[in-house]
């Protein structure tokens, strides 16, 4: 019984990781209708930012969060202006391949600049474990989950309450319609894409705190982020939390209870994505 609870808690906490890393992608898919393969690379850049701020200036990752948000917002906005905006009317495949190409560029740029060794940092909470009776929980994971909750709530608030958010929702539902009522679609796209970058950057900083920074980090998480977004239902931003909980707990359960499960726990995500795509392509969102 204790093991089950521990497993479930591990799963839920791990889901915090998946939630923060997929939130930006969900926003991008929802508003721009674009499966952004370079999302993972912004994650990766965020993780290096977290690493360098800590090792270079002694700044705790939690304090780096706002810096990452600003810098990576700007980067993604730039990427939008320079590349994505040119393909708005191109077929979906072309737009996806464009982001794929960008991800290859960024990833290899990182390889050239940072080489291939994983860099880990050791903020205080990384190695602290909290015990509640027989259950032990890593403090780093708890903090990550808290950050995830805050991010999801923030995005929800932006979408629901602000004018910007309303414009984003309008554009995601009906691009021409929104344009007709005076929304500057191109600006909204740029801001939304930038926001997605900010979210990815912040997630990356948290990754550096509890995992490591590495040029291939993006690739590792892109598929998992994609799984989460697909499970939530493409375009369903708020469903990301639930979807990540489901995926995190599934992964934890497989890891604990299926023999040699930890080995195939990675494959769990991918098999899940296949199953969702086949049987319930709209995921968790209401259809």
């Amino acid at each position, binding site marked *: 019984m204790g093991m089950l609870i521990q497993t479930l808690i591990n799963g839920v906490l791990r889901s915090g990781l998946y939630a923060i890393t997929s939130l930006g992608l969900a926003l991008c898919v929802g508003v721009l209708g674009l*499966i952004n393969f370079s999302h993972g690379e912004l994650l990766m850049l965020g993780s290096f930012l977290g690493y360098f701020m800590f090792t270079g200036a002694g700044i705790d990752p939690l304090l780096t969060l706002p810096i990452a948000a600003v810098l990576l917002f700007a980067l993604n906005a730039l990427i939008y202006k320079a*590349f994505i905006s*040119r*393909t708005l009317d*191109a077929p*979906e*495949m*072309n737009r*996806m*391949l*464009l982001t*794929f*190409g*960008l*991800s*290859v*560029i*960024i*990833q*290899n*740029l990182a*390889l*050239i600049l940072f*080489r*291939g060794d994983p860099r880990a940092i050791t903020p205080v909470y990384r190695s602290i474990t909290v015990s509640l009776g027989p259950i032990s929980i890593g403090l780093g994971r708890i903090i990550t989950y808290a950050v995830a909750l805050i991010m999801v709530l923030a995005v929800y608030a932006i979408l629901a309450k602000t004018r910007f958010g309303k414009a984003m929702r309008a554009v995601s539902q009906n691009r021409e319609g929104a344009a007709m009522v005076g929304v500057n679609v191109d600006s909204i796209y740029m801001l939304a894409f930038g926001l997605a970058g900010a979210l990815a950057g912040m997630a990356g900083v948290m990754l550096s705190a509890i995992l490591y920074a590495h040029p291939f980090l993006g*690739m590792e998480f892109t*598929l998992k982020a*994609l*799984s989460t977004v*697909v499970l939530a239902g493409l375009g369903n931003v708020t469903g990301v939390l639930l979807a990540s909980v489901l995926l995190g707990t599934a992964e934890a359960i497989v890891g604990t209870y299926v023999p*040699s499960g930890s*080995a*195939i726990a*990675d*494959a769990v*995500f*991918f*098999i899940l*994505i*296949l199953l969702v*795509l*086949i049987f319930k*392509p709209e995921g968790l969102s209401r259809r």
Partner: protein
Amino acid sequence: MSNNLQRSSAQRRSGAYVWALIALSLFILVVPRFLDEYRLHVLIMVLVYGALAISWDILGRTGQLSLAHAGLFGLGAYSSAVLTTKLGVPQLLSIVLAGVVCAIVAAGLGAITLRLRATYFSIATLAFAEVVKTLALRMERVTGGPIGISVPMLFGGSRIAAVYMAGVILMLVVLTSIYIERGRHHFAFSAIRTKGDLASVFGVDVVKNKIGAFMVSAGLAGMVGGFYIGYISYTVPHEAFDLGISVSALVMSIFGGLGSTVGPLVGAVILKMIEEYLRVTVKYGYMIAYGAILVAVILFMPYGLVGVARKWLSSRLGASQNGSED
């Protein structure tokens, strides 16, 4: 009037193909004798990637862009290795059987995923490739896990013989591709690619055609994988399922021009040679060139080199044709 023009241009294209094939065969037969070991290796890699790019393109002609090609290549390599080392199958036969295995797997995967929208299909194939890689890493008893499998080197390590074998496989791929391009399948694939659901209204069994294309594409990739492991004499999951293989096949085809035999082949030759040059000079991160090329092609020449050539040709021909039409 225009029908005669059309028929003779079709005939002219047939003629051109035959000459090109002859030239290609002669090139592969003769040139290796003059190359050193390193250049022979580069030639083999060019042939291998040419085969991979064209085989990838075959499925691409139905509008489905797969990100599983590395998965199928690796599956072919491992199948061939397992057949040879664990089941005692003669190596050359195991290469062919590796192709069969991949075709069967593609049939299953395709039956499940080809009904999905194009973008979802691509994601599903990416997921598939990751699953296969994970299985190869974990099923240690069969695949040797992270350490991989070794097989005896083909032809006792003779590189020239390997070149000929690679050449044979490339020829097989080229001929298959041309057969599809020139035959009735071209029409079904093109109709499916441009207007998927509509093609069915005109009698095309869309699912069957897509699965068929996937099986051919996968079978050929599997054979290339089987050859490759025989050439290198070992394989590890990290290399066999390297995403870079899928990326290369994709970029080469798009760069050269999707939907033709010539496009992916030319794209493969040019890009592979650039890559080899970069690999020696830059070492880390030369894949960046691929990313840049993919981005540039999508933004500026979405129909690839073939598209550019066609536009140039038709602007020359258009000038001379204005007299005879209307």
